[in-house]
Structure formats: structure tokens, C-alpha cells
């Protein structure tokens, strides 16, 4: 059993990280009061932007690590720009946030494949090499923990975990974070206290765009290695993790780890004899069924931001 966990662990972490950062982005958006169902589309845009940047730069630049980080940066920038469409529709025009988010998803899915097909012909964009896993010196030789956490890790994993802790700090301890949360709970009160609700919500949505873009890029630059026009529903899974994690950073970490492990176990079940006895369909649908059950369990004590999904009407009481 232990060897199985040891074998699965690195894969599960690699799978968890894009989900984690995307869900964290969704957290900023929803905590500011804007439901962002467009996470999937924003991830796709990020994946596309990083794939195309790295694809071209790897031909010309010799420093491969730098190229990969530039790819991540490109994904962040495109994610932010694209999220502005959602912000504009839902903040300035009081559009239905779910419909606007759906439009974001549809535009991203169609536009990226359209452009990719135009660039490469097949619609897939391949990168020569992504981030490579490495052992962390000293720490990796600690028994048990060293094997689990510090061997075969990606530098990006540590970067995202850092972002997670900074985000948790910002949300709970800084003026900006507290204001952001107040806009998601009772925007009218926040406005009366002198907070510019619209500006805060814009920053919430833009952070979600940046993080979701990053999430999409990490899929390409760590385990996928190729852009194929979709992120296979991970954006929606991130949305589910956000609810599962009850809109708190550490809750989201736990939820995404759960999904990471559940999916990895389902993926590798056929090569591990102990798991082979379970029909694969059970393992595959397990995370989704558990999410549904979790939603039922949490329904009574849900800590959803109260104003999320409602257009801001400053005169409403």
C-alpha cells in the first residue's frame, strides 16, 4: 500500500497544482461577488498563450528555463486581458454572470482552436520540453517526507504553493483582502464605507483571469506538453473544488488535493494490481459523485459569498 502511495504521490501533486491555482483564482472572483464560470475558458486561453509562446521562443532562445517562465507570464497576461470581457459584462453591464461566463468558455474553446489550426495546421501545438522534475538537495534525503514531498518535484509546484500562502495572507490580513470579501458579502455596506465596489470586483475578476491562465499554462508546461484545444473540464472541476473547499484557501487546497488523488488513482488503476479489481468506471465517476454528495452535505451550512452572482445595485437595500 505504502509503495502505491509513494508512486502515485508525485503524479497526484502535478495534477493538483493547475487545479489549485485555478480554484484559487475563482476564489478571488467569487469572494468579490462575481461568479466566474468562465474559469475553463480562461485556462484554455492560458494554455494556448503559453504553448504558442514557448513553441516559438524555444526555436530562438537557448535558455530553456527562462523560456518556460516567459510562457507562464504570457499566460497570466492573456488570462487577465480575457477576463476583462467577463468583468466588463458582469460589472459594468450587469449581465447575467453565468451566461457571460459561458460565453467566455465558448469563445476560448472556439477561438484558440481556430487560431491554432491556422498556425500549425493540425490545431495542436507541441512544445519541445517543459519543466523537468528534480530532487531538492538535502531535504529529499529525509526519510518518508523526503520521498513524498521533495523528490521529483517541479519548481512551479513550490511557486504555486507560495502563491497560495500569499493569497491566504492577503485575503485574511490585508486591507485589500478584507475589502474584497466585504464586496462579496454586502456590497452596499462596503460602498457606504467608502469602498469602490466596482474597482475591487474588477481586481477580483482579473486575479481569477491571471490565476486560471497560469493553471492552464501549467498543464501544458508540466505534464501535457501539447495544446490540443481543451483542458478536459479542469476549469469546471476547479469551480467544484471552490465550493467543496467552502471558499477558503486552505479548504480549496484540501479539495483540489482530493480531486488530484482521486483522478490519479483512476488513471493508474489499471497498472496497479490492488486497484485493478475495482471497475474503472467506479473510480472515474468517484470524484464527481463525491462532489454531489459534498454539495448536499454542505448545503445547510454553506459559506458561499452572499452577494456572489448578483449584479451590484448600489441603491438596493
Amino acid at each position, binding site marked *: 500500500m505504502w509503495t502505491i502511495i509513494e508512486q502515485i504521490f508525485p503524479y497526484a501533486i502535478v495534477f493538483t497544482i493547475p487545479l489549485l491555482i485555478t480554484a484559487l483564482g475563482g476564489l478571488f472572483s467569487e469572494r468579490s461577488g462575481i461568479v466566474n464560470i468562465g474559469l475553463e475558458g480562461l485556462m484554455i486561453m492560458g494554455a494556448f498563450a503559453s504553448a504558442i509562446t514557448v513553441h516559438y521562443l524555444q526555436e530562438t532562445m537557448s535558455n530553456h528555463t527562462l523560456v518556460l517562465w516567459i510562457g507562464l507570464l504570457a499566460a497570466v497576461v492573456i488570462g487577465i486581458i480575457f477576463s476583462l470581457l467577463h468583468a466588463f*459584462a458582469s460589472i459594468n453591464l450587469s*449581465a447575467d454572470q453565468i451566461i*457571460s461566463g459561458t460565453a467566455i468558455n465558448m469563445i476560448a474553446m472556439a477561438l484558440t*482552436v481556430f487560431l491554432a489550426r491556422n498556425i500549425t495546421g493540425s490545431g495542436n501545438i507541441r512544445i519541445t520540453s517543459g519543466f523537468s522534475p528534480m530532487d531538492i538537495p538535502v531535504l529529499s534525503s529525509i526519510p518518508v517526507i523526503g520521498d513524498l514531498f521533495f523528490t521529483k518535484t517541479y519548481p512551479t509546484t513550490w511557486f504555486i504553493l507560495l502563491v497560495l500562502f500569499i493569497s491566504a495572507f492577503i485575503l485574511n490580513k490585508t486591507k485589500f483582502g478584507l475589502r474584497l470579501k466585504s464586496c462579496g458579502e454586502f456590497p452596499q455596506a462596503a460602498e457606504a464605507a467608502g469602498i469602490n465596489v466596482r474597482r475591487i470586483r474588477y481586481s477580483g475578476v482579473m486575479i481569477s483571469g491571471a490565476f486560471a491562465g497560469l493553471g492552464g499554462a501549467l498543464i501544458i508546461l508540466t505534464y501535457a506538453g501539447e495544446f490540443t484545444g481543451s483542458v478536459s473540464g479542469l476549469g469546471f472541476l476547479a469551480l467544484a473544488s471552490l465550493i467543496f473547499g467552502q471558499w477558503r484557501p486552505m479548504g480549496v487546497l484540501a479539495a483540489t488535493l482530493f480531486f488530484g488523488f482521486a483522478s490519479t488513482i483512476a488513471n493508474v488503476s489499471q497498472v496497479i494490481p490492488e486497484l485493478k479489481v475495482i471497475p474503472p468506471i467506479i473510480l472515474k465517476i468517484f470524484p*464527481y459523485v463525491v462532489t454531489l454528495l459534498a454539495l448536499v452535505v454542505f448545503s445547510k451550512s454553506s459559506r458561499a459569498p452572499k452577494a456572489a452572482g448578483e449584479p451590484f445595485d448600489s441603491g438596493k437595500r
Partner: protein
Amino acid sequence: MRHTIVSIIAIILGLVAGGILMVLIGSNPLEGYTYLFQGALRNIERIGNTLATATPLIFAGLSVAFAFRTGLFNIGGSGQMLIGGLCATAVALSFDVSRPILILMMVLAGLLGGALWAFIPGLLKAKFNVHEVVSTIMMNWIAYWTVYYVVPGYFKGEFLETESRKLEEAQTLRSPFLTEMFQGSYINMGIFFAIIAVIIIAFIINKTTMGFELKAVGFNRYAAEYAGMRVNRNIILSMFISGALAGLGGVALYTGNASSIQIGILPSQGYDGIAVALLGANTPVGVFFAAILFGILYSGTGFMNAMIEIPPELANTIIAIIIYFAATSVLIERLLNRFRKRRSGQEMNGPVGKKGVS
């Protein structure tokens, strides 16, 4: 009327955006659109194909629109279509009965399969207040994996592991009469079912107590509850009917337009249903015309791609942009209002100005 104008402006803006995209990749948009519309409507066979392409979209659009009237956002059309298609295919491959009975059984199976898949989110919404957007997305993936394992397990194709056995002509919704009339097109009885569904749903929404109650719940569930309507029952019923419509769309897609069900793909039509409903202003007739328009875009892009080098994903892009403009219709309405005001302002100023001159 107002909705129609907004929808038409959204369509025009979407087509303009598509044109700009064509210019960006170095093609001539006029040429592109000419080929697109030729590809969809040039001869009777192509018109038949366009109608067939529109059929699942009509069902998917009706499904989303119907739930929307009750204030529910059924984003799970894809999963419901997949299960509907799976049930119909399973019936077709398992039972050896005369054709009319088989078709009836397939339609019923697809309808019930889709309805069941939407019933669960409806129940969760009514009993536990679980948001239907998340639960229907989860149901989509459960449907995806169910088909992924059930099809190869029980209905494996002769040559390919990734799709079900091919249905024979008599086991599908194709009819020799229609195929002949449309000169070899793959149009099938699905389009008639779709038109019947449009009429029935329009009747339910506009003329029955049930439709009135469903709309009342959509407008204000607390007021509806206060008026003595059983809100929870209406929510479940609305999702059930919405899912049934999507399931029928799956029947039309997998046993009408196609003759086998593939694994590993969630049908994009479920998603497009949202677009169709939105553009059709959630009315059955609006849905019908919006679906026909999308049918034209989808079936025309194949021809366009063959004639000049424009990727067929242009259709999806145009549809997505139309939806963004439809979602931000406030902007269009504001512009319309400003335009109207300016015009009425001129009319008022006009005579006054003339008086001054004389």
C-alpha cells in the same frame, strides 16, 4: 419585438467579428461568407443537411429555454443528450421488433434517459438547494464516463473500440422518403419530432396552468410559494422536462444524424443549446429560428473550409461571439435607446426650427 431587434443586432455583430477574424488570417470575408452560405443552402441536399444539423440544436435550445423559464440554468444538456443517445442506441441494438414500435421505444428511452439525468440535479436543487449549474456539470462528467465504459463493454463496434456498433438504416430515424426528397441528404424524422416539440412546448408554456406555474416560480419563487404553488415540485418537473428535451436531442443526434455513438466526446450541441436559447429569447419559436441559423453556420463552414483555407471552427467562434453580445444586450439596448431619443429629439426640434425660419 425588442428582443428580436437585439438578437438580430447580436447576430450582425457576431458575423462582423467573424469577418474581422477572416481578414486577420488573410482571407477575404466576402468570399468566405459566400462559400459559407452556399455550403449551407446551395442545393436541396445541402438544405436537408442544414436542417438535420439544426435538429439537435432545436432540442438542446428548447431544453435550456424551458428550464430557464423556471429560473433554472440547465448547463448539463451535453450529458443528458449523451445518455439519451446511449439509451436509444441500446434499445435499437437490443430489441428485434417491427420498425414503428422500435422507433417509438427508442424515442421513449432517450426521453426518459435524458429526463432522469436532469431529474437528479432538479431533486438536489429542490430538496437541498444545491446549485444546478455545478450539479449538472458533475452529471455531464458522470455521463461521459458512463458512456466511455458502457459502449465498449456492451455495444462494441466491429472495427473500432471507440464507438458502438453501427445501426442499420431501419434502426435509425432515417426514412427513405426523406432521403429521396432531399436527394441523399442525411435529414431524418428528427426534424419533425423537433417541430412537434416546439409546438408542444410553446403550448405548455403559454396556454397551460403548468406552464404558468413554472414561469411564476421563475419570476419569483417566494411569491409563487405564497400563492400556494408547490415550488419544489415545479423545479423538479421543469428539470425533468428540460432533460427529456435534451435526451430527445441525443436521440436525433446519435440515431438520426449519426448511426453510432462515440466515446470520449461530450456533444458540443448541449453547450450550443445555451446559445440557441439565449438568442431565441427563451421562446420556442425563437429557439427554432436561432437553431436554424446555427445549423447554417455549422453545415456551411465545412464547405467553406474545403473551398478556401478557413478553419471550420470559425462557426463556433461566431456563435460564441454572438452569445457574448446577446449576454451584454444591455449595451445594445442602451445604444438603441440613445438612438431613439436622439431621433425623437430631432423630430421635436425640427418643426420648431422651421418655425424660426419662417
